[in-house]
């Protein structure tokens, strides 16, 4: 499940700084939201298990 950081103040039901998942964005064009500056990809820092 991919997660994104909300950057804009007009994402429905979210505030800037919130995290949003792709499950919450079903049907939306996520690439367009990133391109338009509404969302930023969240870096996954979790190490892969050996």
């Amino acid at each position: 499940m991919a997660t994104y950081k909300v950057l804009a103040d007009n994402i429905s039901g979210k505030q800037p700084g919130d995290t949003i998942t792709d499950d919450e964005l079903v049907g939306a064009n996520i690439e367009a939201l990133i391109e338009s500056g509404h969302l930023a990809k969240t870096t996954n820092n979790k190490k892969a298990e050996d």
Partner: protein
Amino acid sequence: MAIFVMKNASVTINSVDLSSYCSSVAVDYNVDAVPADVMGTAYHVFQPGLENSTVTVTLNQDFAATKTEATIFPLVGTTTTVLVKAESGAVSATNPSYTCTGFLASSQPVNGAVGDLASMQLVFTGRVVKATT
């Protein structure tokens, strides 16, 4: 809900709430009427064809980051969701939502004559699903 005047509709395009930029919105729920005329009838007969619904939205233009133009420009040529409610409150039996999964073929980043309010009219074409909860 009784009869009412449109004053506070909610329009969310690609999960972005653009209600405060929207001056008009229309949900046209359409199914193609496929002619199925046969001998012996004196009137046209139709069968239901493909759904061909549209949501038409007029938005005031704003080139600021994450506002109208920035939201719409990357959507041209793609399919996304448009959620419309007649009132901005919670979805209910008396305030249903209509979600269009629609293709946006064009936009007008620059549109208007001298003295006009800059705006764009968008038409999303696809299917519409109604929800009351």
